[in-house]
């Protein structure tokens, strides 16, 4: 009888939810503020960016002249050595960064999940860098990596490793890796918390059953928890990947993309071309943004497809 009653409720509900009976007034009222925000601050800039990517804007004769140039801006990208450096740097970062982040964040999430001593403290401590502004992080690490009196070099010199006390931010080979490390330090807590939340949703009964069957903690982790965590893992990995593809603020403060563009990212280069290049042309930087938009979509799709084939339940 109870099942019948529930069925009846569902039937009544579905009738009430038909388009003709929907409370459109309330829907519009609740959605319009956010949709308005979305249209003005998200959709319009995006459409404008697409529009300008096919134009050049030149300051001449006392006015700004917008000229349609078709795909010229996009062709020029491939002859722009600074853009190519920034693409190379960003791709390296988008591969290395998420790998590091997922590895460490997953490991730490499992450690906390199994409630090691002081796990509450560690959970807070590992997440804490996420609470610090990226600008502050950049400034602090600029001091830490200072060649003369920075913590790293002072420590290295103190233990007799003077040869390893490098000008971390002023060489060809180290600035990008410093930036990757600092960004990792600042953001891995986010991935860690998401993965921990994912682990918390896994039923305790499964784990208990495995224990009764004689599974060890590593076996439980690898054979039960990790596969069950995979959907969350994919989401976090994609978020991490996208975070690296658009990384800006820490690079901007820490190295400003230098020296000689050795730590330039696509985002910092867009900013420089748009606002710091003795030109008012927003066409070319828009083309960079549109091109990179395509690259991000392709990257996300590939990761998604590749990893989804590995999700098992």
């Amino acid at each position, binding site marked *: 009888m109870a099942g019948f009653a529930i069925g009846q409720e569902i039937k009544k509900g579905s009738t009430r939810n038909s388009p003709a009976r929907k409370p459109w007034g309330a829907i519009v009222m609740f959605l319009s503020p956010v949709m308005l925000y979305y249209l003005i*601050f*998200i*959709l319009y*800039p*995006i459409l*404008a*960016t697409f*529009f*300008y990517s096919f134009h050049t*804007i030149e*300051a*001449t*004769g*006392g*006015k*700004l*002249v*917008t000229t349609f140039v078709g795909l010229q801006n996009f062709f020029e990208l491939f002859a722009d050595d600074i853009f190519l450096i920034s693409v190379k740097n960003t791709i390296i970062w988008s591969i290395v960064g998420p790998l590091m982040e997922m590895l460490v964040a997953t490991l730490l999430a499992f450690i906390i999940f199994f409630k090691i001593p002081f796990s509450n403290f560690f959970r807070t401590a590992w997440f804490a860098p996420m609470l610090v502004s990226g600008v502050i992080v950049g400034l602090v690490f*600029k*001091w830490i*990596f*200072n*060649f*003369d*009196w920075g913590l790293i070099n002072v420590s290295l010199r103190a233990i007799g490793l003077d040869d390893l006390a490098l*000008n971390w*931010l*002023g060489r060809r080979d180290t600035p990008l890796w410093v930036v990757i490390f600092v960004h990792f330090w600042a953001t891995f807590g986010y991935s860690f918390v998401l993965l921990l939340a994912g682990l918390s949703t896994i039923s305790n009964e499964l784990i208990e059953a495995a224990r009764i069957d004689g599974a060890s903690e590593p076996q439980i982790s690898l054979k039960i928890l990790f596969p069950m965590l995979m959907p969350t893992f994919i989401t976090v990995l*994609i*978020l991490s990947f*996208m975070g690296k*593809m*658009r990384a*800006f603020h820490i690079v901007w403060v820490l190295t*400003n993309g*230098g*020296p*000689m*563009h050795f730590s330039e990212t*696509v*985002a910092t280069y*867009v*900013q*420089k*071309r*748009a*606002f710091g*290049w*003795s*030109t*008012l042309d*927003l066409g070319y*930087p*828009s083309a960079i*943004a549109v091109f*990179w*938009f395509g690259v*991000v*979509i392709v990257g*996300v799709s590939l990761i998604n497809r590749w990893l989804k084939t590995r999700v098992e339940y």
Partner: protein
Amino acid sequence: MVLKVATKIISIIIILAILAACAPAATPAPPTAAPKPTDPPKAAAPTSAPTIVPAQPTKAPEPTQAPTKAPEPTKPAAPTAAQKPTDPVASTPIPGKKVVTWWSHWANEPAKVQVIEQIVKDYETANPDVDIILVWWDKNPLRDAIRNTMTAGKGAPDITTFDTEVVEWVKAGWLADLESVLPWENFNPAAKLDGQYAGIKGNYKYNIGAAYNIILYNKEAFQKAGVTVPANFQFTQDEYLDVIKKCKAAGYAGNAQAIGNRPVTAYFAPMWLLFNLTGPAGLEKYWKGESSWDTPEVRQVLNYMVDLTKAGFWPPTLTTMTIDEYHVYFHTQRKSCMLWVPTWYTGRAFKPEKDGGQSPDFKFGMLRYPAMKGSQYNDYVLAGFESGYAVLTQGKVQDIAKDILKFASQPKYGALWVALTNSPTVIKYQAKDMPKVEGAEKWQWYWDEFNKVYGPLKVATPDTTHCGDFEAALVSLVSQGLSQGLVTVDEVIKGMNAKLCKK
């Protein structure tokens, strides 16, 4: 199924948000009116006023035509009335008054703030119906804000800080023509040339400050390093390299300059040395990005910079030290023998010690540029202009804004600038204009040294404005690359030639 659709929608929104974050603010700017054509600039007659006198205005074709008149650097003269700090200028509009908004650089230079605030106060007193709102900025954010507000079509101030190299503002018609507004006879002739651009009629910059590019040295450090300054204050190319080596051996960096937040700074030294070697016309040729860098004279300078760098010319904190920090590095920490710096040094250094200024007792010396081998220009000093001001065309009170700059062109404000900032002015003034500034005598030694070392020299102000690609290459290759040993001379030359403004 619903979950899948929702996930896809959320993914798309996130990606779009990323794109929006990456994208430049692509708001179209409404076309603005071209500046009205005016008569060609007329040369103003020089006077004997104690202001900077450029020996070689920007368009000098031949070095041999350089004027020979020695500069008369400004210095505080006998005071007439005590100059007190101005009352703070009101920062909110007063109802019923015509409001003029003025955005200015120099937030961190209190003496300059004081000068501008005095001008504002005097103007408001003379024009009770006008209320001027002053907003203080650092230069780079100010430029971004002007660019954004002008592009967006609203929110821009009426008067803004303006530097000559930001030529795109002029080309876009964002700046009002000041040609017929300013009393040019009050200015040094070079100051007028500074606001003019080839192929564009009009004059777009109000200047108040001049900037000599000078070399300061720490006398105590030189003594410890065993360096003796020549009687003419000028080392030869080889002698100067030896000075750097001695400084390093004594535990000092050669030069305190760094590129932490001003990436251009480390190209000052090669620029000034190239000036010494090639003269005003030569520097103009190379620094405007219109001539190949693959010449013996450029190679000589770049190779010499490599030698200097290896000898210890730059501080170990070159990469990260900010402009404020390297001033302190020189005058308070005293970790370098020298500082290559324009005369805007005083803006940051001659403020109270508690605010990061130097002790008046740190009486440094000054040097002329090292004499490059084969140079014919050892009796020249390179000068330019401080940031100035311009009137933006978006403002609704342009006439008042222009009138304010005209008002600020009075000789007494040139004198006030010198008296308060201890920096040269381009506004001509007489000794009677000089106000008394409490405690000014503590910096008299600075002016004595300045007049002794640079007074007899000819001053040149070559035009070095160039295109964006060339500037980016200068910053990347010369300022960041060469100074940190990241590139070879051949790579610098090849890279610079690839980014020439006119090929």
